């Protein structure tokens, strides 16, 4: 950790003639009368993306963004300002703006810095630099050619590669001092197929906090991972070519393992973020200790999984991440907290204080949210349904945390008839109420899987990378928004 602190500190602070040793004095000025707590968040982020379509690599882009965010807190009030420039004068200006929210009151104190012991969950090297530009371009072209060769019904292939290298340093008046170097890469393939006048799309991808070599490794089927994504995108597109209208009405639904964990992210996760519960605006507010899901459900948020897209060694407030049990055997155990909401609710922060960048305020956010495996054989779960829907893959979802209503859209789904998966059905939106739907989970599979690493969560206009996961599970009744009978 000290090694990272020195390295990141040098990178972020030295160009503006600042040192880590100066930060307590800057925080000291910030924590004047009426300010309870303050922090500084320095960040430098380089990112790139390469896009292939129509068989050619027609676009590439590179971005460098850097700056410092300054936050001051007084009771429930937060003042915030930021600067693209990292030097003493800019910091002073931002600090004066941020502390303008102060009310007269007691003098805050700056604690001596203490850096937490942190387990490294990912490598520190720049993930963008492990391949030469020519190698990145060749990878995209190779996957494109190999994909087009798979099936004559392919009309269009889009392949993209994206990487981010983020360096952050956070110093807070409570003594938190931490730095993190965060790699993040992603590879996506989209396919349009056409047959007998019908056209459909399929898409798949993956990634995580690793580097581009991940996509060249063999996947579980012994195939190059990038090519595995392409094959999966094509498979989904071809399934959808045959899809008939989904039924409309309330039906039993079996959710597949893995990415279908979007269900938990929407139906449970957001409603358990500390800010909503401190404000009493969530359908789960004030329900700690109560049964909010069927006793088969144990759901955690775990930021400590090595290399996962939603993982962080430290959150954006310098708190080490952890595995937080949200729901245990159906009983609500705890919320996800950042420092502000933890302090106001009188609990400990859980390492869920996250922000999109230095120019955004931190708030409680998920990391990797998933349900632990149950005991049922997935096939037995399917066999138990007379007429229903099997959701193999989902698109996005959304939730109204106050009413508890959540939706998700299927991107690959099938009818279940007499215990067997039969015809594919078109994409449809499913809608339910979080606590109600979770209480109707009647079977949980033994096949827990996490997603492949492409999830992005939006809240209050801020996007952060997240992970989801779940075993196959059955919800006895949920509304399916198709157009069929």
């Amino acid at each position: 950790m000290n090694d990272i602190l020195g390295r990141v500190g040098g990178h972020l602070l030295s160009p503006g003639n600042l040192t880590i040793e100066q930060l307590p004095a800057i925080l000291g000025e910030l924590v004047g009368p009426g300010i309870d707590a303050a922090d500084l968040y320095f960040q430098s982020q380089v990112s790139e993306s390469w896009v292939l379509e129509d068989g050619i690599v027609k676009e590439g882009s590179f971005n460098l963004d850097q700056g410092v965010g300054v936050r001051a807190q007084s009771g429930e009030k937060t003042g915030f300002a930021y600067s693209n420039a990292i030097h003493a004068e800019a910091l002073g200006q931002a600090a004066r703006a941020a502390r303008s929210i102060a009310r007269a009151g007691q003098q805050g104190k700056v604690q001596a810095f203490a850096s937490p012991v942190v387990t490294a969950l990912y490598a520190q090297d720049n993930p963008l630099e492990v391949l030469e530009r020519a190698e990145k371009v060749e990878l995209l072209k190779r996957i494109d050619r190999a994909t087009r060769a798979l099936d004559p019904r392919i009309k269009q292939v889009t392949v993209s590669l994206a990487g981010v290298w983020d360096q952050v340093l956070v110093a807070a008046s409570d003594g938190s001092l931490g730095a993190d170097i965060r790699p993040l890469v992603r590879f996506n393939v989209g396919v349009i197929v056409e047959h007998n006048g019908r056209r459909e799309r399929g898409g798949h991808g993956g990634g995580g906090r690793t580097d581009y070599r991940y996509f060249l490794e063999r996947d579980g089927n012994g195939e190059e991972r990038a090519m595995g994504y392409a094959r999966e995108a094509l498979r989904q597109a071809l399934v959808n070519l045959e899809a008939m209208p989904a039924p409309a009405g309330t039906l039993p639904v079996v959710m597949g393992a893995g990415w279908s964990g979007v269900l938990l992210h929407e139906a449970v996760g957001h409603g358990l973020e500390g800010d909503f519960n401190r404000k009493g605006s969530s359908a789960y507010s004030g329900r700690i200790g109560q049964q909010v899901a069927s006793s088969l459900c144990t759901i955690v948020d775990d930021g400590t999984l090595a290399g996962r897209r939603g993982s962080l060694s430290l959150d954006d407030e310098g708190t080490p991440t952890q595995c937080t049990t949200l729901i245990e055997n159906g009983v609500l155990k705890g919320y996800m907290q950042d420092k502000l909401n933890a302090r106001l609710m009188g609990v400990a922060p859980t390492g869920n204080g996250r922000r999109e960048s230095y120019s955004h305020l931190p708030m409680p956010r998920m990391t990797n949210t998933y349900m632990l495996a149950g005991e049922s054989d997935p096939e037995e779960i399917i066999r138990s349904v007379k007429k229903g829907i099997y959701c193999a893959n989902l698109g996005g979802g959304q939730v109204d945390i106050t009413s508890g209503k959540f939706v998700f859209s299927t991107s690959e789904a099938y009818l279940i008839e007499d215990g067997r998966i039969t015809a594919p059905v078109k994409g449809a939106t499913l809608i339910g109420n979080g606590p109600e739907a979770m209480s109707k989970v009647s079977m949980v599979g033994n096949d827990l899987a996490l997603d492949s690493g492409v999830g992005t969560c939006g809240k209050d206009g801020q996007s952060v990378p997240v992970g989801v996961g779940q075993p196959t599970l059955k919800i006895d009744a949920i509304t399916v928004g198709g157009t069929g009978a």
Partner: protein
Amino acid sequence: MSSAQAVGPQALPDLQTQVEQIIAEARRQGASACEVAVSMEQGLSTTVRQGEVETVEFNRDQGFGITLYVGQRKGSASTSASGDEAIRETVAAALAIAKHASEDDCAGLADAALMARDMPDMDLFHPWAISPEQAVERALACEAAAFATDTRISNADGTSLSTHQGCRVYGNSHGFIGGYASTRHSLSCVMIAEGEGQMQRDYWYDVSRQGELLADPARIGRLAAERSVARLGARPVPTCEVPVLFAPELATGLFGHFLAAISGGNLYRHSSFLEGALGQRLFPEWLSLDERPHIPRAMGSATFDGDGLATYAKPFVDGGELVSYILGTYSGRKLGLPSTANSGGVHNLFVSHGDEDQQALLRRMGRGLLVTELMGQGLNLVTGDYSRGAAGFWVENGEIQFPVQEVTIAGNLRDMFRQIVAVGSDLELRGNIRTGSVLIERMTVAGS
């Protein structure tokens, strides 16, 4: 928060100089053509909740982006850093990408002869001299009005006032350079009502180029409160096929989907169900969709598009027929058509409408669903299949009966567009798309 000058028209000459510097650097490093955008923005956002200040945020952003060409190869780079070194490095990053990108016949700047020449002032810059204290005061007044509206308003989820001013200059190696300063001010209020064993949330907001023209804070608060309370007791309805009336703030989304489906990028990627639909009758004969890019103070106004082409007024749909796609220079070349000066999108879309207000349209509908909220992204643009979560009100005999939630509405956009029965006179004026309520003949509502 750097000690740079104030954001506004007075900063434009300086931004123009920066654009020229960056173009010169790109040429020096060997680019055959390039285009550059430089922008800066500053703002203030305050949020109050339950009578107290919750956040005061000061924004100040700057940055530039360059797209350059080496022959028919293209690369882009952008940064929030400033200064000569940042310019050199960003240009070098774009150039390194261009050298590895593929030859693309369609790549390159728009034709030099098409660059915008006249740049009428659209009066988009109206800074609001409001202090953080005054902003907080207005937000508090808004929230107080919401709490005073109804005793069932039990909680608040934040009332925010924000004011932003920005300026942006675009230039390219044809010698085109243009820029403008603009402002955007908004006030929004989210309230929570409790009753009938439920907790329900809803909101209202206003946005304007001119702070003084924002709706009265008390009115915004009252509407947010009334909308939240009106949802109490919401329940699903049985699955059925009925007419659906989209409230104007949601009807904008229907036309937004249409614009996406006729956009060049989706067409040349074979990703739109409206590929090849030019000249087809897609809407009822009385319906037209017109772009009017030069309206003073409008949210979507612009004199030139993302390629430097002069924007102009035109119909996309006339007499129900699709008469133009939405094209930029690149997508136009891909489709063998001239650009419609829509690189970056459409500037102020007007939907033709009749003279019936929402009440009249409810009477016309008789029995069906009035939709006031949509959830999720359930749209497949390749097929036009549409399925989204919805909330609103059940209507019988033209009268609202009870609030509805936990239902979905589904159909196919091609059918939905054809089955538009009426567009109301109750216009949504806050965004880039101006439409009234939209009545659709028949959709599948899935519920209990």
